[in-house]
């Protein structure tokens, strides 16, 4: 099977710091790939490269076998890669519906939309409500309320719903459960599995080992700016994974699935 998202030899330098050092990456169709690594290992840089938020200095990224060169998150989004960023990328003063459709607003049909560029608020709110209900997040009373009035968990829900609603090829989630309570975390994990069942592959970045081992099909261990190895969560313990990513243990095989 060919990877749906493949990166080879990615290099990203910030001044003297090398964040990505000849890094490889593979995501296969329909799987959940967890990316784990110590702080400063370059996970975020890898994710930003894949989602178009940073431009790599060297290396290639292929989506569905086609070479991609992302210069902005908009390019990656148009190619079908949706990302939930750690800081959520929401605009506090705008409403939930406005945020979900930011950058891909729906205009009214007919003259009002075509000539006066009027937004179809009713339709956007209807679809936003539908998505949030699907995720069991409709404890939010008013879809028109500003995001800044929501709790941290609700904001996370809005960001996840946005990615799940629009991702067509790949969904990338950077620490989606970091700010959540037990119950909301459970919802997000169920949502991740739900998205997988619909056939979308997911890249999950997380520090939470129980969550990673629960949902991941494969685990990409990131260390010192590159892929150290890929392990099978069914054949390793969480302590093995922690040992690998901190350098306490050397990997036996670079890829257990090869």
């Amino acid at each position: 099977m060919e990877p749906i998202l493949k990166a080879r030899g990615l290099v990203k330098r910030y001044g003297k710091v090398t964040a990505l050092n000849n890094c490889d990456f593979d995501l296969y169709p329909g799987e959940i790939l967890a990316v784990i690594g110590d702080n400063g290992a370059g996970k975020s840089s890898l994710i930003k490269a894949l989602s178009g938020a940073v431009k790599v200095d060297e290396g290639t990224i292929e989506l569905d076998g086609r070479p991609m060169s992302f210069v902005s998150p908009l390019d990656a989004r148009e190619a079908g890669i949706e990302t939930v960023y750690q800081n959520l990328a929401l605009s506090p003063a705008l409403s939930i519906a406005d945020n979900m459709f930011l950058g891909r607003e729906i205009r009214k049909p007919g003259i009002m939309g075509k000539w006066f560029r009027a937004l179809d608020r009713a339709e956007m709110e209807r679809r936003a409500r539908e998505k949030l209900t699907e995720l069991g997040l409709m404890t939010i009373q008013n879809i028109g309320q500003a995001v800044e009035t929501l709790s941290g968990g609700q904001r996370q829900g809005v960001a996840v719903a946005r990615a799940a609603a629009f991702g067509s090829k790949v969904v990338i989630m950077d620490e989606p459960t970091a700010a959540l309570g037990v119950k909301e975390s459970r919802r997000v994990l169920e949502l991740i599995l739900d998205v997988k069942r619909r056939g979308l592959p997911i890249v999950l970045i997380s520090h939470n080992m129980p969550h990673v081992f629960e949902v991941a099909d494969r685990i990409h261990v990131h260390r010192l700016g590159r892929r150290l190895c890929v392990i099978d969560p069914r054949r390793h313990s969480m302590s093995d994974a922690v040992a690998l990513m901190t350098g306490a243990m050397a990997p036996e095989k670079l890829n257990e699935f090869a």
Partner: protein
Amino acid sequence: MATETRGPQGFEAALARNPEAVAEFTQRKSPVQRARQLLHQTPSLVPLIVLVVSISVFGALLGQKFFSAFTLTLILQQVAIVGIVGAAQSLVVLTAGIDLSVGAIMVLSSVIMGQFTFRYGIPAPLSVLCGLAAGAAIGFVNGTLVARMKLPPFIVTLGMWQIVLATNFLYSANETIRAQDISAKAPILQFFGNTFRIGADEAGRGGAVFTYGAVLLIVLVLLIAYVLRQTAWGRHVYAVGDDPDAAELAGVQTRKVLVTVYTLSGLICALAGWVMIGRLGSVSPTAGQFANIESITAVVIGGISLFGGRGSVLGMLFGALIVGVFSLGLKLMGTDPQWTYLLIGVLIIAAVAVDQWIRKAAA
């Protein structure tokens, strides 16, 4: 070897028994909190209240002299230029920027409209278009420096203010084009100075007097209010002012939004330059020196946050009118004009204090 559970962990079993409702806070809100909530949702309400109160107070003190259609529309005429420039300023301030070059762009555009007509003999409508294009071009340069070079808006427009103003004096050779010449040869330059009356008496006195410039102000503000609220571009202006990094990641083309905002600001300032010819009658390179400070005053009193992303252009209109009401009201009462400046200074500080207080509603 530690024991590890794969899948939901033991303690999560408790979730099955919990009620579905999440924490609900049915805290009773005091009237003050509710008022704050309301003001947070409709930021133009504060300046509207202040405007109505100040009109009522001056109306009560001065009676018919102030509270007549003639005087009230006179205020509208007097704030037309500041209001139009304020609309440009509002767009820029909503993106968390500031435009100090608005007044200079306005003057240079009006000088270009006049000089092109009288020095080169270009047909007046074409000169007007050249003036508008020049304003938009200067705005485009501002926007490019802010968005692509990532220079602070304050510095960019501070520099541009000096550059444009100096260009204005060098190009015009400090020469004024007289009103008689304009009305004889190119009356279109004075177009926005034309007036019409509603409800005047037989002798043609009294009643509401509207200049076309005042009408333009109202139409422009309503148009911008519609664009900001009802179009994707308008929402993006707010998103960029709120949190540019988040907007960028969420798929807003932040640089494009900034460049269009500054370009539009320049174009609107040029339009204000055209209105200014109508108001003064003549083309004067020394006019409109304080338009930048006056427009920022209108924006701040109108409740638009200088930190970006909050406020409405309608609030700016109310802010400009408040200043107009105070100026004319105090003048009719025969006080020293310094009292006007003093009171406007108080209003500015009060407006920002109210803005900070309202923001707490969100927290």
